[in-house]
């Protein structure tokens, strides 16, 4: 119970739980859409989803400043590539929050004469760019890990063992591909934080891809990906060891 209380006392913790619930509702609505007996339940789930989304927009009102502060911090990192990727990601996230705040003001009626659709698309574009830069950072981390592992003598012995295990398969298929995949999987396995962050960003990417029409999936895929990324977010917040830093 103490751990639950501590988790929910963090603003981020609560937001991730609400996000998970929001996307779980979206997924359930999609799965039950053709079920005529559950129309009542579908209506309730839709209402809950809208409610959570509106509430989360209100709670995000101060997050622009958070992102700007994070961008200022990441500008001072020693690694140039990391600094560039993270600063770009945080800057785009700050722009996303600005668009999101404007949309909130439009939804509650504080601002009336703005083009809701245009601002919504801009928000999705900024979110998409922040995810792309975050993924670039993940790929960079993975490359660094793989390079480090390839230099490690102990790992090289392990690789030899793996390649000689199934000779008929290794020589028949592409041995370099086999070696590359083995190196990649071993690197990800030894650093679960990078793997989780990459998976989270890939799942999140489907949301703006669908919204912007770049890769149109359906509401079910978006719901599932949103739910999965929220659950990963909750896990990384509850277990700080699994969170990728900086």
């Amino acid at each position, binding site marked *: 119970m103490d751990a639950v209380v501590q988790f929910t006392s963090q603003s981020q913790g609560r937001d991730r739980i*609400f996000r998970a619930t929001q996307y779980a509702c979206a997924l359930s609505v999609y799965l039950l859409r053709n079920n005529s007996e559950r129309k009542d339940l579908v209506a309730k789930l839709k209402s809950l989803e809208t409610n959570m989304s509106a509430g989360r927009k209100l709670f995000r009102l101060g997050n622009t400043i958070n992102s700007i502060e994070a961008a200022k911090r990441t500008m001072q990192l020693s690694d140039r590539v990391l600094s560039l990727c993270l600063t770009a990601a945080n800057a785009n996230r700050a722009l996303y929050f600005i668009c999101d705040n404007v949309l909130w003001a439009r939804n509650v*009626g504080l601002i009336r004469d703005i083009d809701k659709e245009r601002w919504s698309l801009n928000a999705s574009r900024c979110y998409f760019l922040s995810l792309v830069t975050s993924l670039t950072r993940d790929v960079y981390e993975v490359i660094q890990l793989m390079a480090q592992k390839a230099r490690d003598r102990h790992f090289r012995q392990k690789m030899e063992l793996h390649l000689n295990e199934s000779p008929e398969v290794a020589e028949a298929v592409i041995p370099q591909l086999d070696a590359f995949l083995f190196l990649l999987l071993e690197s990800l396995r030894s650093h679960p934080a990078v793997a989780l962050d990459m998976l989270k960003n890939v799942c999140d990417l489907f949301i703006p891809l669908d919204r912007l029409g770049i890769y149109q999936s359906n509401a079910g895929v978006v719901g599932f990906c949103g739910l999965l990324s929220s659950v990963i977010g909750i896990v990384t917040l509850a277990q700080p060891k699994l969170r990728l830093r900086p």
Partner: protein
Amino acid sequence: MESWVRFNSQSQAKERIIRAAQYACTLLGYTLQKGGAAADLLHTVSQLEAHMSLSRKLLRLGNSVEALEAAKRAIHLSDGVLRLCLTISHLNRAMYFACDNILWAGKTGLVPEWTCTSGARDLSDVYELHLLMDREAHYRASKSPPSVQPSPSLSADPPSPAPEALPWLSRQLHLLVTVLYTNPPLLLDLLKNLCDIFIPLDRLGIRPTGSGFVGACGLTSSLLSIATILHPWLKLKP
């Protein structure tokens, strides 16, 4: 900026800001109505207030657990009066949050509306009881603090065998003022609870004051609450 980030990361802090904004809207709505503002502006302000109220209910969804944990901790206090009052206060708060959650479920359409009308009344009753218990606990605590020294003017008076009512009352008041002056967290908490109590008093119709006064009280208590979060030394413990 750094302090904003730290402040914002606390869920309670966010809730307090939204509460301050909600009661500011109530006060603004009242002022605009008195000033004869346009109907659609009034509608926007009341819509904003309703949206903030519902969102705060969403944010408070897990707070029953927190209140129960606080009640469990309060059972172990050494002072008898404080233990009783604070435990009951926390249990009432847990009930308040439970009613609050039911109200949120009703407003979102998850449960039928009939569960919510009685819930609203229960909510106000429970909240008022919690505020009264809190005030009682802190008042009792202020009456017998070990570190307070009586002022020299009082000790100069010779003690009479049958004290008159008026000098006794003035002595008690003087003691109360001294205690509150030397104990800012207690003063702040008393003021906050005093402001808060007008809200359920108005809702239950015990002492109707009007939306303007309720808005002003709610805004003041939210601002005091934000001050205790920004400066933790101002928070009354336990």
